[in-house]
């Protein structure tokens, strides 16, 4: 079996008196799509934020390719998020002043890729996500479904090893949501990117290879336990 890419053990995180994570475990392999499920307020998003190095857990470990995230400097973690991780949130979080192609090219530009090359690669991804026609438009001028596909293109354009998707279809209707999931999972499988998919919708989780259930801050990772 392929080696684990990202592993979390015994994660704990509290906000004030409230324990968001209480001894949560998680693991994912390259090319795998794992759904993180659970009711609202169960700690799903906190788990994702800890895994992605956005939030520092109070206890426990997150290891990415044998490196402990808490041992990295802030700059190293930022570089990791920029170079190796991709993010898709419920609302696209596209930059409203930039066109769609500029939005997708943005992570490449931040990595020092020249504008023409960055926009060429961005256009390829927009094409793959079937939204080439919105390239020159600004996020405010496109539909929710189109905007979310642009956001997926932006998350994948740098060739990340892990894509973190937090309720990526939460703001979409069924048909658009399905198409976004089909395109996201197909693209991730093609590029062997792992996808951590936070969702409370079973029909979205059905696009995953397996699920991890979070309840009261405890993640039950059957794979990890095995």
């Amino acid at each position, binding site marked *: 079996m392929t080696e684990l890419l990202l592993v979390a053990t015994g994660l704990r995180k509290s906000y004030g008196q409230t324990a968001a994570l209480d001894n949560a475990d998680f693991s994912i392999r390259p090319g795998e799509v794992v759904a993180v499920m659970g*009711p609202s307020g169960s700690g799903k998003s906190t788990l994702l934020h800890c895994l992605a190095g956005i939030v520092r857990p109070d206890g426990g470990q997150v290891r990415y390719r044998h490196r402990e995230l808490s041992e990295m400097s802030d700059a190293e973690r930022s570089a990791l998020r920029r170079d190796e991780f991709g993010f898709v949130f419920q609302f696209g979080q596209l930059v409203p002043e930039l066109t769609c192609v500029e939005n997708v090219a943005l992570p490449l530009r931040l990595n020092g890729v020249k504008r023409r090359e960055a926009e060429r690669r961005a256009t390829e991804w927009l094409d793959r996500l079937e939204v080439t026609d919105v390239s020159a438009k600004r996020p405010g001028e496109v539909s929710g479904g189109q905007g979310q596909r642009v956001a997926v293109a932006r998350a994948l354009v740098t060739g990340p090893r892990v894509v973190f998707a937090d309720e990526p279809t939460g703001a979409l209707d069924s048909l658009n949501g399905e198409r976004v999931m089909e395109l996201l999972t197909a693209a991730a499988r093609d590029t062997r990117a792992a996808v951590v998919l936070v969702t409370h919708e*079973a029909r979205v989780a*059905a696009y995953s290879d397996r699920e991890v259930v979070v309840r009261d801050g405890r993640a039950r990772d059957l794979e990890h336990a095995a």
Partner: protein
Amino acid sequence: MSIGHTFLGLLESGPRHGYDLKRTFDERFGHDRPLAYGQVYSTLARLLKNGLVEVNGIEPGGGPERKRYAITAAGITDVEQWLAHPEKPEPYLQSTLYNKVVLALLTGRSAADLLDTQRSEHLRLMRELTRRKSGGDLADQLVCDHALFHLEADLRWLELTAARLDQLAKEVRK
């Protein structure tokens, strides 16, 4: 599904042989469950007896499979009434899963584990249907969607029950 009414609906566009009816039925509605020949001919015999279809011709070569069936005026009325009549919604009040949850609580076993195992099994089937949908035509997609929405409803019930287990435990142990 009412096979008889479906046959009548298929016969409205023109007379067909038994084999042709079976093939069209299987293609459009059969999916995982193709009709057995016995079902086809027993259904046609019943429709014939009730005057809803008639034998429109027998082709040389003989044998029951060579008969061509046509819908009658009574058959058209029958299928029309069937289509206009709403299906009775399933009440789903007898749930094995609910019984299992209560029994687990009563016997001191883990109802949460039971629900987790069930969720996993539901999701396994939902994944299978989702894969089938992505490779299928529109008919496949709609049939799979119907199943997926029902499974999703079950899962929502599982989640709600999981969130109320403590409360339910108190109720059942009274």
